C-alpha cells in the first residue's frame, strides 16, 4: 500500500489515467466528447495508455470484448455522456450476457447539472443497471481512484462481466487524493475467487458424488461452455486431461468452442439448435450429463420438459444462480472450473481402475456420426456457404486464427465448419446475438494479437451494422481479413420465414447492397470478390497472402439453409438434417 507521504494531489482525469496504468491497462477503445474531454486531455500528455479511436461507441464495446476474449485481460472503453454512453449499451449488454470482463468509463455532465435535462445528459447508471455487473456514479474525486480499482476487481472476479463508472466532468477537473492501488474492501461482494478456492472452500463431497456417478455411467457425456474459456488455459488443459482419462465423449456450446480441441476424436461437435446430430442425440440418450461452465441456455436445451430425459446431471458453475435455474440437477458444484476440474481429476485418478466400459455407447455414437450431419450438396455453379467455410478452414487451420463472426446463418456455418483447437480463438456474440459484433471484435482481437491471423466472418446484413469500423481498420492498419458471406438476405430471418411463415420473405431481402469492393477501396482497403466455386480457393489464398486488411465479398447461394436444425420448441431427438427440411413442423410459434 502506498504510504501517505507519497500521496499526490491530481485532477480526477489524471487519477483515471494513473489508476488505469496501475491496473496494467495498455489499450483502451473509445470516442471523445464534451463530458469526457478532461480525461482525453490527460490522455494526450501521457504515453503508457494506447487509445484506439473507433467510429461508434457500440464498436468500442465490441472491440473491447474482442480484446478481452482473445487476451484474457479486462477490456476498457471510454465514452462521453448521453449518446456516447447510450451507444455503448448494446455492447455492455452483450458482454453481460456472455460474461466478458469490461470496464466502461463514461463522462457525465457536471454534478450541478445532473437532473436538469442538460445537454447530452442521460441517466446512464439507471440505464445500465440491468446490463452491468455493477455500476458507479462518482460524486467525489477522492473516491475515484479506489472505485476504478474496485470496478476492475468486480469485472474480472467470479463470473466476469461489464462494470460502468460514470464520472461527471467536474469530478474529472477537481483535484483530489489518489492512494494508488489499495486492497479492495468490499465485504458485501461475494464471489468465488478465480483459480483458487481460498475464499469459499470447494465442497469435496459433491466432487466425490460426481465422480461416483461418472464411474457408474454407461452413457456419459461432457457438455462444456464458455465458463471454461473464462476460467483460463489451465482449466482447458485440465478438461483435456479429464476427458482423455475418462474416455467420455464431449460436446460444447457455441460459447465454449475451443476449450477442447475440435480435432480430437472424442469431440462430437457443437450441440444445440444447429449442433451436430451425434451431439444432440447423445445429449438426449445419455445416462449422465456433466455440464462444465454452461448454463442450459434455450439454444441448447430445446424443449426444456423433454431435455435429456433419462440422465443424472452434474453441473459445475462459478455462478450458483445458473444452477437449478432452467434444469434441475442431481449434483450441483459451485466452483471455478479450474478448481473443480482439478478436484474431479484427482478423485478420478484415485478410482481409475473402476473406469466404466462405455464401448457400447461409443458404438451408438459412431452410428450417429456415420450419418454425417454436416454434409451438404455442393455445387459447381454457385458457392455454397458451407463450402466457403470449409475452404477457409483448410487454408487457415494450421495458423490457429482468431475468428470473429456477426450473427445469423454465417455465424452457425462458421461454428460448424471452422475447427477451433485452442481456447480464446473464437469470438462470437452468443447470448445477446448482436449483429454488428464481428468487425469491431476482430479489431479488438487484432490489437491484442498484432502478429496473429484474425478473420472476421460476416454476413451482408450484419456487416452493414458496424461497417464504419473499416475506417478504424485502416487508421491502425490492422491486417484483418473480413469475409462477407453474401446471400443478399438476412439469411436466418429468411430461413425462419421459409420454414415457419410459409416462405413469406417479409423485409428480409436487402435491396441496394453496396458494391463491397468499391466500398473497401473507398477506405483504401483491398476489396476482393468471388462468385465462382472453382476460383474460391485461389481468391482466398490471395486474401491471406495480402499483408494488410482485406474485405472479401463472397457471393453465395441465397437459398441455402443451416442444418441440422432442432425446430424451435422441439426436443434434441427431433433434430432434422438438411435432407429432411420438408418435415419441419412448428410446435411452438412462440419459441425463438
Amino acid at each position, binding site marked *: 500500500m502506498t504510504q501517505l507521504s507519497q500521496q499526490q494531489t491530481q485532477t480526477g482525469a489524471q487519477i483515471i489515467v494513473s489508476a488505469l496504468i496501475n491496473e496494467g491497462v495498455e489499450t483502451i477503445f473509445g470516442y471523445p466528447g464534451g463530458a469526457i474531454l478532461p480525461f482525453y486531455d490527460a490522455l494526450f500528455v501521457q504515453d503508457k495508455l494506447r487509445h484506439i479511436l473507433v467510429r461508434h461507441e457500440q464498436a468500442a464495446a465490441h472491440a473491447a470484448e474482442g480484446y478481452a476474449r482473445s487476451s484474457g485481460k479486462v477490456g476498457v472503453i471510454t465514452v462521453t455522456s448521453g449518446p456516447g454512453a447510450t451507444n455503448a449499451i448494446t455492447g455492455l449488454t452483450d458482454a453481460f450476457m456472455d460474461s466478458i470482463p469490461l470496464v466502461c468509463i463514461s463522462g457525465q455532465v457536471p454534478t450541478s447539472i445532473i437532473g436538469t435535462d442538460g445537454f447530452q445528459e442521460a441517466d446512464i447508471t439507471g440505464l445500465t443497471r*440491468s446490463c452491468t455487473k455493477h455500476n458507479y456514479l462518482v460524486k467525489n474525486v477522492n473516491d475515484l481512484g479506489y472505485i476504478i480499482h474496485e470496478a476492475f476487481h468486480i469485472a474480472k472476479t467470479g463470473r466476469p462481466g461489464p462494470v460502468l463508472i460514470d464520472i461527471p466532468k467536474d469530478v474529472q477537473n477537481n483535484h483530489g487524493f489518489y492512494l494508488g492501488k489499495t486492497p479492495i474492501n468490499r465485504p458485501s461482494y461475494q464471489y468465488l475467487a478465480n483459480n483458487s478456492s481460498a475464499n469459499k472452500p470447494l465442497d469435496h463431497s459433491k466432487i466425490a458424488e460426481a465422480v461416483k456417478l461418472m464411474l457408474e455411467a454407461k452413457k456419459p457425456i461432457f457438455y462444456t461452455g464458455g465458463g471454461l474459456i473464462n476460467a483460463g488455459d489451465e482449466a482447458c488443459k485440465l478438461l483435456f486431461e479429464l476427458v482423455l482419462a475418462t474416455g467420455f465423449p464431449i460436446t460444447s456450446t457455441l460459447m465454449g468452442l475451443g476449450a477442447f480441441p475440435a480435432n480430437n476424436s472424442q469431440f462430437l461437435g457443437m450441440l444445440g439448435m444447429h449442433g451436430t446430430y451425434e451431439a444432440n442425440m447423445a445429449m438426449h440418450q445419455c445416462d449422465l450429463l456433466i455440464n462444465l461452465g454452461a448454463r442450459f441456455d434455450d439454444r441448447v436445451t430445446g424443449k426444456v420438459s423433454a431435455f435429456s430425459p433419462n440422465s443424472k446431471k452434474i453441473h459445475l458453475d462459478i455462478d450458483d444462480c445458473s444452477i437449478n435455474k432452467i434444469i434441475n440437477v442431481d449434483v450441483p458444484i459451485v466452483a471455478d472450473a479450474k478448481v473443480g476440474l482439478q478436484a474431479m481429476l484427482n478423485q478420478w485418478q484415485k478410482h481409475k481402475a473402476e473406469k466404466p466400459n462405455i464401448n457400447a455407447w461409443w458404438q451408438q455414437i459412431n452410428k450417429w456420426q456415420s450419418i454425417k450431419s454436416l454434409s451438404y450438396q455442393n455445387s459447381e455453379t454457385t458457392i455454397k456457404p458451407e463450402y466457403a467455410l470449409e475452404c477457409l478452414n483448410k487454408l487457415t487451420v494450421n495458423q490457429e486464427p482468431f475468428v470473429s463472426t456477426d450473427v445469423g446463418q454465417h455465424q452457425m456455418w462458421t461454428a460448424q465448419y471452422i475447427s477451433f483447437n485452442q481456447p480464446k480463438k473464437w469470438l462470437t456474440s452468443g447470448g445477446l446475438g448482436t449483429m454488428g459484433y464481428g468487425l469491431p471484435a476482430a479489431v479488438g482481437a487484432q490489437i491484442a494479437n498484432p502478429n496473429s491471423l484474425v478473420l472476421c466472418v460476416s454476413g451482408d446484413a450484419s456487416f452493414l451494422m458496424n461497417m464504419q469500423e473499416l475506417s478504424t481498420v485502416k487508421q491502425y492498419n490492422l491486417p484483418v481479413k473480413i469475409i462477407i458471406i453474401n446471400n443478399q438476405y438476412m439469411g436466418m430471418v429468411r430461413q425462419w420465414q421459409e420454414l415457419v411463415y410459409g416462405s413469406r420473405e417479409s423485409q428480409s431481402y436487402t435491396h441496394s447492397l453496396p458494391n463491397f469492393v468499391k466500398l473497401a477501396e473507398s477506405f483504401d482497403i483491398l476489396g476482393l470478390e468471388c462468385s465462382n466455386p472453382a476460383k474460391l480457393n485461389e481468391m482466398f489464398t490471395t486474401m491471406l497472402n495480402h499483408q494488410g486488411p482485406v474485405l472479401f465479398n463472397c457471393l453465395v447461394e441465397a437459398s441455402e439453409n443451416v442444418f441440422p436444425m432442432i425446430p424451435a420448441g422441439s426436443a434434441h431427438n427431433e433434430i432434422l438434417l438438411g435432407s429432411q427440411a420438408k418435415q419441419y413442423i412448428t410446435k411452438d410459434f412462440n419459441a425463438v
Partner: protein
Amino acid sequence: MTDTIKNHIVNIIIDNEFGALARVIELFSARGYNIETLSVAPVSGKQNVSVITITTNCNDKTIALICKLLQRIVPVHTAKQLNSQHISQELVLLKIAESPLFIEDILQHNTACRWRIINPQISQTQTNLELIGDSHNINQIIETFASHKIISIARSGLVAIDL
C-alpha cells in the same frame, strides 16, 4: 420443493449507497417477479447498512433463485428467505372521519392488533388511528371501517425477523 405459489418474505441486508434499492427493485421487475410489499430503512447501530423486507408471491424454486440473484448484487451482504418460524408486523396509520369515542367503541373488543388513537387535539369529527399487527388482522380491521369515511391511510409494508 413444490410448485405451489405462496407468499414468501425475504430480508436483505444491503450497503446504503447510491442506487442500491433500485438494483433490488429492478431485479424483480427485470425478471418478472412480483413485489407485494416493500419496506426499507437504515438500521441504527450499523450506519451504512439498510434492511429491506420484501414479500413476494412465487413457488419454492423461484424464491430460492431470487435469493441467489439478490445475493449476486454487489452491495447486498445477505438475502435470506424467512422460514415459517418468524415474527412479522405491519404498521398502519389511518385518518377516519368519526369521533374517537366511536372508534374506541368499535375496537374495544379487538385483540388481534395493537391499536391506539393519536389525536393531538380533541375532535368529534376526525380520529387518527395507529394499528400494528400482522397483515391479515390489519386487513380485517380496515374492512370494518369500510362503511366509514377513511380520509387517508399509510401502510408500512411488512417487517419481519426469524425467530
